[in-house]
């Protein structure tokens, strides 16, 4: 059981760490993910920060899609 717990918590830690790094990228480059962010107030980016950490795999996917489009 301890192995399962260790794997789960390591996964959780890595997930949130990447999320935080992506969140910092988002704070500066949010319009690259959604052009509507360009006209939105900067405070909105901070409000969205926790959600970006939680959903970074989806947003990274969107970022790559918009780059290849």
């Amino acid at each position, binding site marked *: 059981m301890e192995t399962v*717990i260790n794997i789960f918590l390591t996964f*959780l830690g890595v997930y949130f760490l990447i999320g935080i790094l992506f969140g910092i990228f988002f704070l500066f480059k949010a319009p690259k993910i959604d052009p509507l962010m360009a*006209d*939105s107030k900067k405070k909105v980016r901070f*409000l*969205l920060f926790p*959600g970006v950490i939680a959903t970074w795999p989806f947003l990274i996917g969107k970022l790559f899609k918009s780059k290849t489009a």
Partner: protein
Amino acid sequence: MALDYKLVIWNSFKKQYDKLIVAGMLLYIIVFAVLTFVFNSETSVETLIIRAFGSLAIIMLHIVLVIGPLSRLNEKFLPILYNRRHLGVSMFLAAFIHGGFSMFQFHALGDVNPIYSVFTSNMDYNSLSNFPFQVLGFLALLILFAMAATSHDFFLSNLSAKVWKRLHMMVYLAYALIIAHVFLGAFQQEASLFSVSLMALGFITISSLHLRAAFKERKIDRAKTIVEEGWLEVCSIDDIEEDRAKIFTVNKERVAIFKYDGKLSAIHNVCKHQGGPLGEGKIIDGCVTCPWHGYQYLPHNGQSPPPFTEKVATYQLKLKNDIVYINPEALAEGTEVKPVDI
């Protein structure tokens, strides 16, 4: 409908609701504290906070979960549905305070990482009577965090409505984890018949309301239509109220047929915003207006009025002897269809 993202979308109505939420939460905490000190004066402040915010979060979660089916059963509840997002975030904050204080009091004072300690301080995972119930609360809190953190139109738009909806449907998994957390944990330590009964009553209420709402929806899906030369006979013209719609299931899709200004138009029933039932809304200022958050579409082409860009599918209609017929083939989203004159 917006051209940028707002911090919080507030109007005077929503502000009133939010004040009510804050006042209700404060009142509950005060009453809980007073009752605890009167009847159980030995309770420590930390324990009081853990119990007060934990029970508050559970009550709020029940309210969040009954709003959906209630508003489907009775449109008078729709205004509460509009504010469910703020109620959900407030519920997460209450749960977060409960979880944060619990972790601090029981896991943060040793030399082990508090989160690791939640999972490993009690390894009795095979026992029902001594199950490490805090793990279940932690997992529920993770789900509630993801939901609260993505309760913004930015995520609805960027995760896609499908992913966003799936993520937020996880509230039922969180609810199941919380029920197990409460039954295996708090009731293990201090079995209170009153608390057990209250939780059971809450579960029965939520389940029965969801079942009733599901039966109501099933009626719409099972409504019979008659085929005539590729057109489906759906209803009489008198069955549809002025500036309102009647919903039918056509080719496994829900379609709303609106009657307005002496005309009829049909559009897909699902709003592009959060999947709200457009057919339960009304025509306001010439636009179909979603009852959930006020997103609007022109009935003859399914397009949001400029500068907005949302579009839904449209359908062809015909009227013969006051009977409404629909072509079951959906047209591309935003396709203009000449309304049928009544």
